């Protein structure tokens, strides 16, 4: 990002607020065009080049105020942005239920467990596959749901704060959640257990669930903060 661009501080502030890089690029471009019109207007009125530059930057307005106004207005333009508590505190919990329900339908169908539970004379389900799918579902939820909520925060212009809160909720949930499938033994009944626990071997059982949402949030924040709106061609 060129240091010389007068709108660079605004671009930085918008990115720090978690606004999408493409939006920041377009906005800065538009404001640069406006600033250039102001600069030309000042030159026509007889101001020196330096004075015209300073006047144009001043007329555009304070970068802090502008960044806050842009973020607030856009956040208000989407349902998620207007209802962040529902979207980023309650919906993660709903998403977990939906995730497991979808998993149950798909995994049960793939492994043949639904057919088997309806008719015990049908072929045995693929228990090792189902056990693997349960593990995948646990890990997949810990990785994919934070991606979904970070994406939602970006799309709704809600910023880092709400992405952070959603990831914190998901981290707590996945850190303690367990799911276990036990294939049928002598009684012929399989057992599926899901709940919360603190395992004796915390590092290998609980820590990955805690860490994955934070890892996703870290990558999201890093990508966002390292986005460089191309201000070079905004210097008209």
């Amino acid at each position, binding site marked *: 990002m060129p240091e010389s661009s007068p709108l660079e501080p605004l671009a930085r502030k918008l990115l720090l607020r978690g606004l999408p890089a493409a939006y920041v690029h377009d*906005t800065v471009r*538009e*404001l640069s*065009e*406006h600033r250039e*019109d*102001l600069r030309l207007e000042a030159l026509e009125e007889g101001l020196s080049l330096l004075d015209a530059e300073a006047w144009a930057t001043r*007329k*555009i*307005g*304070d970068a802090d*105020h*502008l960044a806050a*106004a*842009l973020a*607030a*207005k*856009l956040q*208000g*333009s*989407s349902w998620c942005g207007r209802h962040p508590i529902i979207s980023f505190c309650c919906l993660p919990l709903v998403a977990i239920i939906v995730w497991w329900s979808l998993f149950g339908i798909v995994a049960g169908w793939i492994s043949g467990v639904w057919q088997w539970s309806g008719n015990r004379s049908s072929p045995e389900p693929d228990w090792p596959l189902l056990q693997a799918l349960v593990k995948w579902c646990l890990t997949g939820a810990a990785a994919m749901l934070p991606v979904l909520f970070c994406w939602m925060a970006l799309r709704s212009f809600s910023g880092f704060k709400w992405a952070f809160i959603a990831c914190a909720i998901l981290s707590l949930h996945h850190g303690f959640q367990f799911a276990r499938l036990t294939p049928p033994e002598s009684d012929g009944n399989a057992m599926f257990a899901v709940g919360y626990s603190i395992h004796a071997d915390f590092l290998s059982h609980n820590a990955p669930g805690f860490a994955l949402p934070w890892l996703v949030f870290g990558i999201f924040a890093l990508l966002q903060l390292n986005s460089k709106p191309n201000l070079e061609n905004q210097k*008209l």
Partner: protein
Amino acid sequence: MGNTNPSFLNGIPELLLLHLLAEREMYGYELVKTIQARSQETFHFGEGCVYPILHYLEKAKLLKSRRRKVDGRSRKYYHLTAKGGRRLAELRGEWKAVTAGVSTVLGWEHA
């Protein structure tokens, strides 16, 4: 008092922008200059302030924008959508009602 007038309280910039864009498509700088000229410089604001409102209106599908090259310079022009037209009619009605109410209170209705 059951109903407040949120559009009156918050919607003046929206009303002005939608009204001007109903006349013809314009870009940000042009809009600001038109507001200043028609209001005889009544409003003083950082000129960047129109963009949060324009972007909000665009997100709400009340406006659409397109890039056009004029005199060798690319500009982002905004124009009103059908939804924007309906919103403008609503805002005009609310504005008329509110100003009529205020005028009555101040005793200006026969002025």
